[in-house]
């Protein structure tokens, strides 16, 4: 899966969790402050990404850095995807 596809999956997952259509995602957007994600919707987002990207996330290992911006979350998902497909 290319990074652009991961961004598309992330946009779809965020749109579903936030219950509004997101047309474009600037990597610099803050997930919590700009997009309005909260601790409740984080759980739903993780579950959705597991389904669509096909990687297993251990939420207990996630730090706040991963969720700072759209770009940081994309980096995390891409690294997880590379790891899961390399095995």
């Amino acid at each position, binding site marked *: 899966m290319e990074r652009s596809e991961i961004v598309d999956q992330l946009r779809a997952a965020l749109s579903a969790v936030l219950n509004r259509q997101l047309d474009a995602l600037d990597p610099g957007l803050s997930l*919590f*402050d700009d997009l309005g994600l*909260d*601790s*409740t919707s*984080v*759980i*739903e987002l*993780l*579950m959705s990404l*597991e389904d669509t990207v096909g990687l297993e*996330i*251990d*939420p*207990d290992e*996630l*730090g*706040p850095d*991963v*969720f700072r911006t759209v770009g940081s979350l994309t980096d995390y998902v891409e690294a997880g995807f590379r790891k899961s497909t390399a095995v």
Partner: protein
Amino acid sequence: MKFVERLKKDLTGDAGSRFVFLNNFEVERSWAAGEPKLPGAGISFAGTTVNRMEEMGALLAESGDVVVLKAPMDTEFTAYLDGLGAAAGQVFAAERSRPEHTVTEDALDSPELLRRLRGLADGRTFLMPLGVSPAEERLAKETGLPLAGPSSQVCKHVNGKIFSRRLVDRLGLRAVPGDICETVGELRAALTSRLAAGGRVVVKESLGVSGRGMVVVRDEAGAARLLRLIERRGATAPARLVVESWIEHAQDLNYQLVVGRSGQVRFETVKAAVLRDGVHQGHRFPVELPATAERELREAVELIGGALFEEGYHGMVGVDAMLGHDGTLHPCLEINARFNMSTYQSRVAERFIPAGHHAIAATFAVRPGRAHSFPEVAEALGDLLLRAPGGSGVLINNFATLNAAATDTGSFHGRLYGICVAESADAALAVRGTAETRLRALTEGRS
């Protein structure tokens, strides 16, 4: 006797004692340390703005009292409060402060402040924190000032949502249908049975921080997703969760009581959450309840207060309750045995909300592109800024949170807290709306 004098009498036996207010907001984070979390709920963020809510304590202190702050107060905001006669205490500011630290952590790191606090020890001066955690106990030890409250261990115990649920059952109060899960293995059955009963289900960490550490499960697919994440920990892993049916279309209430050090219980106030188009506007007061609900609430106050005293607690207590459309009261969803937002409005209420007037305690969330001074805020609010007791308008009761997250580049999230006062509940809501429009115009550069 005024609110703070009553509190002193209840907690120390002496209405003339001196309090050193220590407004350690989100003390719950300390109580939650090491407790099992919901998946993803461990993602915490530096509470830069939350830590500056400590300034609200300046409006609680009486003459002779001391308020410990992370930084000296803005001189122009101080002048505004002085003009109103809204802040009577003396401010002691930490000389070493880090944005991510609570006021207590800053105090412990400030030798000069510690020296000044030690100088207050006279046998009649008490540390009065928002809530007691190990950090406040360390500060009491460092300064020789006794705490006007119980140990951090007692506080943590009585602030758990599992404790609240069990207490409600034991006292025979009307409970929200739900279950307690001590381990991960118990969650599947609890979720299945609650969903089968109909409606949405809320899963809450026993010691989650207010508004966080919870997830709403809408259907079986949502339950399956949550279970998939959490069951990876193993069935016997600790969970410490409360699983409850979501009560739809109910009115959220919050009431305050004080448990005295000799076990006396005193009701203080009840406030109601205000929603407009589904958006939280703040809490309004005074609140008229239906007669039955009023009676049940007063009974709950006595029962809960008495039970907390038996557990070794004395101090301020806030209880979240719910009033259904049909007038059914669920008198205890959650016990917050600490100061609550309501506590910080108590002294303001007795001075600035005359009989017959109404108020909404509001939070104004703004997105400034730069730091704004208090005179700019005052000018933007114009005739809405409350400048004398007895009138209508907005009393700003926390200014430091506006610029706490300011950066040199780009916009940031800020908050102002205000008490909107008017001659009717609707008029108070209108004051709130106009104030918000004016503050947004200022911070978005449209004024």
